[in-house]
């Protein structure tokens, strides 16, 4: 698909977001939508890692929670203005993840997953034990200023405004990811994922691109963390817990990791299940689990994969040959 068409779709999505914000009658429902969108950004980050590196992270809550804690600490200690703090936090997360990535992306498969789990749980314990700085298990409030980017907090935190902000951020981040994956960098990371040895023998250094993908996915997850801290004004060690990483991973699997949009769909489905079934069934997660099994069995490439198959036939060799023009 041409990027201009993707931009058009993004514009349509933006209009749809405005419609949702104005047509949704309930503030609590809008709040839930905002939470779903924040998790969609989170899942997008986890999905990018799986799509481009072929690596499964069980510890991305590290970057989700760290973004909130970093915002909280910086604003509490008044190091930077909130606007600058957002960029500093995201940059810091990118650099930190790149350095971690340089070490751990060399480890294949399940061992990589276990390493991410270990690092994530270390951060969870650190946040729990550092009572003086983080409030320990009680968590900490994030002292957002009365105005952010010139907008009053009272306006910013209105459910419809907040929803529109996170919706717009989701669209911008998704566009940025899609653009980046269409550059030469995207091709290099695909090559490394598909066949690392062959990649080396066409002159590609394989560790740095993988570490950069890890950093990129961490920054996307960090954006979700910043949005979440703005939404709740609070952060606790629970945000760093492995189960949060697990939820994001489930969203990715349900939505499908082969397309960029898949994890976003997964997050939406997850929250729909939670909202629709949560009122009727205490153990709604069990029902969601059954749905997860069904997706894995019947459509291993998730909802996005199923939709793609429904909307267009497989890109056959015959039509690819005719399009090549040679």
């Amino acid at each position, binding site marked *: 698909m041409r990027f201009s068409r993707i931009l058009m779709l993004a514009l349509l999505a933006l209009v749809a977001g405005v419609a949702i914000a104005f047509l949704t009658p309930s503030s609590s429902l809008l709040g839930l939508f905002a939470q779903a969108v924040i998790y969609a950004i989170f899942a997008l980050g986890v999905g990018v890692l799986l799509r481009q590196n072929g690596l499964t992270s069980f510890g991305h809550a590290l970057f989700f929670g760290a973004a909130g804690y970093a915002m909280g600490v910086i604003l509490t200690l008044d190091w930077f203005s909130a606007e600058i703090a957002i960029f500093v936090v995201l940059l810091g997360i990118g650099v930190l993840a790149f350095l971690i990535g340089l070490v751990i992306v060399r480890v294949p498969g399940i061992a990589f997953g276990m390493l991410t789990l270990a690092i994530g749980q270390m951060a969870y314990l650190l946040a729990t034990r550092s009572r003086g700085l983080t409030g320990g298990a009680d968590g900490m409030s994030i002292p957002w200023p009365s105005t952010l980017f010139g907008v009053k907090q009272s306006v910013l935190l209105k459910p419809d405004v907040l929803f529109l902000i996170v919706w717009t951020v989701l669209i911008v981040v998704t566009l940025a990811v899609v653009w980046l994956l269409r550059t030469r960098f995207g091709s290099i990371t695909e*090559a490394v994922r*598909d066949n690392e040895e*062959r990649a080396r023998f066409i*002159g590609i250094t394989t560790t740095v691109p993988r570490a950069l993908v890890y950093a990129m996915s961490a920054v996307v997850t960090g954006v979700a963390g910043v949005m979440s801290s703005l939404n709740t004004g609070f952060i606790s060690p629970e945000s760093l817990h492995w189960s949060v990483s697990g939820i994001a991973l489930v969203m990715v699997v349900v939505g499908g990791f082969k397309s960029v949009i898949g994890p976003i769909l997964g997050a939406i489905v997850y929250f729909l299940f939670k909202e629709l079934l949560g009122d009727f069934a205490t153990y709604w997660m069990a029902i969601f689990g059954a749905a997860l099994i069904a997706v894995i069995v019947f459509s291993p490439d998730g909802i996005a994969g199923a939709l793609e198959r429904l909307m267009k036939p497989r*890109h056959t060799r015959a039509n*690819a040959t005719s*399009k090549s023009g040679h």
Partner: protein
Amino acid sequence: MTSYVLETRDVAIHYGGVKALDGVSLTLGKGQILGLIGPNGAGKSTVIDAITGRRPLTRGQVILDGQDVSQLGAVERRRLGLSRSFQRTSIFGGMPVRKQVELASYKMGMSDSAADAEAVLEELDLARLGNVMAEDLGYGEQRRLDLALALVGRPKMLMLDEPMAGLSVKESHDLAQHLKALTSRWEVSVLLVEHDMDVVFGISDVVTVFELGRVIANGAPAQVRADPRVREAYLGSSA
């Protein structure tokens, strides 16, 4: 000053007490084809691994165009012009043909990677399949794509590990003739590991025979074919 494109001096790779390669010295001139034959386990693929930096040397040197590359990694050696294909087809299955060849050309630092990729695709009759996903290609086409990835960036030295494996007789014959033509048109030297003796003796300028990690014969094809040690060790009395 040497006139060889590739020279290995006393190259050895030992795994504990096992000598996969034991003092291998080879030379190859510009545009030459060196056919490397020997029974399974003789060390033919290992010598390619040693030259390309896939496996570290226990001792010895690898000289490319007068430069000692023994201490360089695989990526650096590839950029200097040491290229290879693999025994099992090694391509990027989830990527269209043209995209991966162009990417390889770009990583080789070609100023016009699109033009270089197109030239390679034309050379190997893959241009019409440029938009096809590599995983959708037939086996013979995948082998040619493997060769295309090795050929981008105008390498000085091409090492092919059983490129005819799994091909029909006609495909093997066509590819052999193609290789012969390539060496003069692209000024590339070829080290060819192959079990098809008709191909090896038909297109090689020099044939080297390996047994148990050592060179047991080396010379012009007719000379090697007539060597009693080679006949006994590998070719058999009917060769």
